[in-house]
């Protein structure tokens, strides 16, 4: 049932909270292959995880600061683009993160 108007804001907040953790995981998974922001966003949208650039780019920066991603500026189609990919540290962390997510998913399915 769609949330009523009164609960819409609450639902939005809960939805965003739910999505936040999943998005990080999705971005890390997608960046096992090198992408620049625009193609990454399109790839995520194609997999049913749309994300606006105002959320994606700050997230990419944060993940890079945390050492999970590496980036470099390169020219493609006569335009400079910043390409991101998973760092060695990112690869190492992704494995247990995915296992954790699968565990949560299994538990939730059990509860439901």
């Amino acid at each position, binding site marked *: 049932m769609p949330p009523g108007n009164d609960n819409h804001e609450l639902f939005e907040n809960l939805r965003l909270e739910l999505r936040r953790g999943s998005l990080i995981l999705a971005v890390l998974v997608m960046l096992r292959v090198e992408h620049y922001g*625009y193609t990454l966003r399109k790839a995520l949208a194609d997999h049913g995880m749309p994300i606006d650039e105002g*959320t994606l*780019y*700050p997230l990419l920066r944060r993940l890079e600061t945390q050492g999970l991603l590496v980036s470099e500026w390169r020219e493609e189609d006569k335009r*400079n683009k910043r390409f991101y990919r998973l760092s060695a540290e990112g690869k190492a962390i992704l494995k247990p993160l995915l296992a954790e997510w699968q565990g949560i998913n299994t538990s939730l399915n059990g509860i439901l």
Partner: protein
Amino acid sequence: MELLDSYLRAVKRYLPRAQSSDIIKELSDDLRSQLEEKETAAGCPLTDEEIAAFLKQHGDPMTVARRYRQDSPSLTIGWELIGPELFPMYLILLSINLVITIAALTIVSLSMRAQITWQTFTLPVIIQIFCVTLAFMAMNVVKRKFPQPWYYPPAEMAAMMQIKRGYSISGLILWSPVLLWWLALPRFPSLILGSAAAHLVLAPSWHNFYVPILLLVLASISQRVLNLFYPDWTWLLPVMRLLINAASVPVLYFLLFKSQPLVLVAAAFQGVPQYEKLAEAVNGSLVWGVFGPWLWGYAGISALVYAWYCLPHLRRLLRGKAGASSATVSQSPEK
């Protein structure tokens, strides 16, 4: 892509300086790619209106920049008082204010040969911190409640946006009483002279400025009336305000620095020292208070700001003329 560049410049203003160029380069590439995709889908170049609608949907520049400042310092006590995008500006202005206050107090104390203690500075510094913080807290609330680019909108975008009817109405509500007051002044000088009107009269030099100021007020009201009915005439606001403010500068200059007294002692009281002093005091308060240098400075600065907002309209006009003339040239061989 003039609009996009203008939008990106506006976003850049609120970004952390160390990363701003990098962020803008990346954001620019993304937005350009999206616009190109839209153009490909439409099969023709996007119009300025379509680009403006796209950028509006993307978010106002301050909100976009705010997402990159999540970890930046802010003033938060339970809830956010000054957001991360305003906080650096707050610190800079507060520091400038405090340095000026402390320097001025030190100079005054030294010149008066007064003893300098901590107490000399405590109260003025607390007042400065309180006032600057309060002003920024108010700005923070306004920016959160009205997320559209109302404060320094990029000139190119301002040129595209319809003038809100509420904006014209609020201007009319403000200026109509001013007009009525000004119209009533010749008949009821007490509206400006107060109880002193019993002993003073408006001087001939006052009447020299009466009509020019009346015309400026009327022009200001006319612009609001016209924009109320024609909100699409976005050029009218900056052009009229540029003209009004630019015309106010010489009027106020002559009023402030070159004019004879604006009020005189009424014939029945001439020569009475008490009323001569009263006339002097009223002249002083009119010249340095009501029509003081603050108003002159405000008009000058406003003229420059509105000149800046006229530029995109001028560019569009010239582009339109150039487009029309090149179309004529390209059509002429076929005739």
